[in-house]
């Protein structure tokens, strides 16, 4: 595939199923979407909605004996599903890299951070020791770590959470990937540090011409930093569209419920929050119908019996999976001020 193909990643009918003692567990099912070069897409959903499994499957990390992956993940012309470990190794780092959620546990505590960065440079790019060190210091500087030459010799335990996440980002960027998968990169960080890390990711994306998949449970994180949003529920995409469209003209009741149940800074004290009754479904006991139907106030018999597929909305690229969608012409979600 040529460098000029605007589509970097094409996911088609991807399904990841875990074989558990309780039966097959469809963690991700029927997921299809495309990602352009230099685009940031957000993936939102509650815990257990399959966000993390989706990114791990795209990365090709989900391949143990008890997992079945079907469908296709075409990354810059390379098929990730069913690729051998050798083939995937060739792609990790230079094509796709991942930032994991917990900066405390994704670093080796007994290895100097500099060594953890230049490891991939030496193995993957084949740099000499000195070159790799120089490049690692450059990367530390790129991610905004003060006195990088000094920090090169630090152990992860000597750094704060925010600094550690910067190191994790530096490792991910070491081989200039075309796609960066960021799985909850700021969860567990303080708000001021979160803002710093998100700004950094935004800035690096522009400078290095990467595409980013930003996975989060926090709608505030994706609101201003993505061009499109995927909303996941029970392992499936229930709504996809441009960020503005998903926030202001969503059609899927779950999207609205998710937006309305988040507390807002503009709310008055003691504002009653809109809640979604019940809890997310048990993935082992999914029914034929829409997974959200048991919690949905618009659900009809059809919702319980037949699963809705993604159908296009008015705006190109906006699609939702619902039999009884919210009306088209609506104002923005009710904001209590």
């Amino acid at each position, binding site marked *: 595939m040529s460098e000029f193909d605007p589509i970097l990643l094409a996911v088609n009918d991807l399904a990841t199923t875990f074989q558990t003692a309780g039966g097959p567990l469809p963690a991700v099912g029927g997921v299809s979407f495309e990602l352009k070069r230099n685009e940031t897409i957000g993936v939102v959903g509650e815990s257990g909605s399959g966000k993390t499994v989706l990114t791990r499957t795209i990365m090709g990390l989900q391949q143990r004996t008890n997992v079945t992956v079907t469908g296709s993940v075409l990354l810059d012309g390379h098929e990730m599903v069913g690729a051998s470990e050798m083939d995937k190794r060739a792609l990790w780092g230079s094509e796709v890299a991942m930032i994991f959620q917990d900066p405390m546990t994704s670093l080796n505590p007994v290895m100097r951070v500099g060594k953890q960065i230049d490891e991939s440079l030496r193995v993957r790019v084949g740099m000499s020791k000195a070159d790799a060190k120089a490049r690692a210091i450059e990367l530390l500087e790129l991610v905004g770590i003060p006195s990088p030459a000094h920090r090169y010799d630090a152990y992860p335990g000597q750094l704060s959470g925010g600094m550690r996440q910067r190191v994790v980002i530096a490792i991910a960027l070491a081989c200039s990937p075309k796609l960066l998968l960021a799985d909850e990169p700021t969860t567990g960080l303080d708000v001021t540090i979160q803002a710093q890390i998100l700004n950094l990711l935004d800035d690096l994306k522009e400078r290095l011409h990467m595409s980013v998949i930003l996975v989060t449970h926090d709608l505030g994180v994706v609101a201003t930093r993505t061009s499109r949003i995927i909303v996941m529920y029970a392992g499936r995409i229930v709504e996809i569209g441009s960020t503005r469209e998903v926030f202001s003209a969503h059609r899927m009741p779950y999207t609205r419920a998710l937006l309305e149940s988040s507390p807002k*800074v503009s*709310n008055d004290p003691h504002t*009653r929050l809109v809640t979604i009754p019940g809890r997310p479904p048990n993935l082992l006991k999914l029914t034929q119908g829409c997974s959200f139907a048991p919690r949905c106030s618009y659900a009809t018999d059809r919702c319980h019996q037949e699963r809705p597929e993604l159908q296009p909305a008015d705006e190109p690229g906006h699609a939702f999976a619902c039999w009884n969608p919210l009306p088209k012409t609506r104002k923005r979600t009710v904001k209590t001020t």
Partner: protein
Amino acid sequence: MNRAEPLLKIRDLKVSFGMGHHEVQAVAGVSFDIFEGETLGLVGESGCGKSTTGKALMRIVEPTSGTIELDGVDLCAQKGKALRNIRTRMQMIFQDPISSLNPRRRIKDIVAEPLDCWKSVTGTERDTVVSDLLVKVGIDPQVYGNRYARQFSGGQCQRISIARSLAMRPKLLICDEMVSALDVSVQAQILNLLEDLKKEYGLTLLFIAHDLAVVKNVSDRVAVMYLGKICEIGPSNTLYEVPAHPYTKFLLGAALEADPDSPVHGDVLTGEPPSPMNPPSGCRFRTRCPFATQKCADEEPLLSEVAPGHSVACHYPLNVKTPQKRAPRTTT
């Protein structure tokens, strides 16, 4: 609401921890009041001492100095039976709902534990009280009462913790990051439940959290902590609309609103909080503050009132002359 005499009066509370030869002052002189029936939100970044303050109020950690008066009785001077007696009037709910319950105990016994400790009820009364409490928090005692804590999800465990904390009919509830481990949909359920119970039981709350939106939604007044000290305290709406302390302003600027039209905030606070082992001289925020001057390094700003009920510890408070939105900062 009785504004005359506060329910809880904290004066110059200090908590230090020994670290080898060093000493860390986690809470470095905090004073505030909580009036009966109100909710005071306590926000700040991790490590600012907000949880330690909450724990010190319960005397789970021992305050180094200062006074904590509940209804006129100084908690720090109490010990033994007297302290235990006072503690029944204040309860705490912790951050991690799952680890704050014993996984191998039945939930009805967990909820009844405070009653058992005090032997305050008879056997049959105990069952009724426990059933009532579980119903109040939205758990069916007939179906779930005999199940073990490990069989419940995070949201349900938090409901059970709330039921346990209400068993002794406390006046004051200290909620330490009680919703931060929960998903948004569950978080909304728990926050609504808390509001309902607060009304029903006439509770007074100290709500400790790092999430500014959550705190705004539940609190009448908010206190902002930075590195062991309160830098601003005031009514929620005023504090969020016209923050007087630069730190509050940056904290609010960094909070992300779930709205694509919200401006992408240009001014992000640089750097990280300094170590509490070696706090900066003068104003503790001066190392990250863009407005800091020599005066900030030399002289520690004290909390002073800028408007009724709104106090700030800053030599150059923002938005003070013209208390309106986006008022230009007046430099003196």
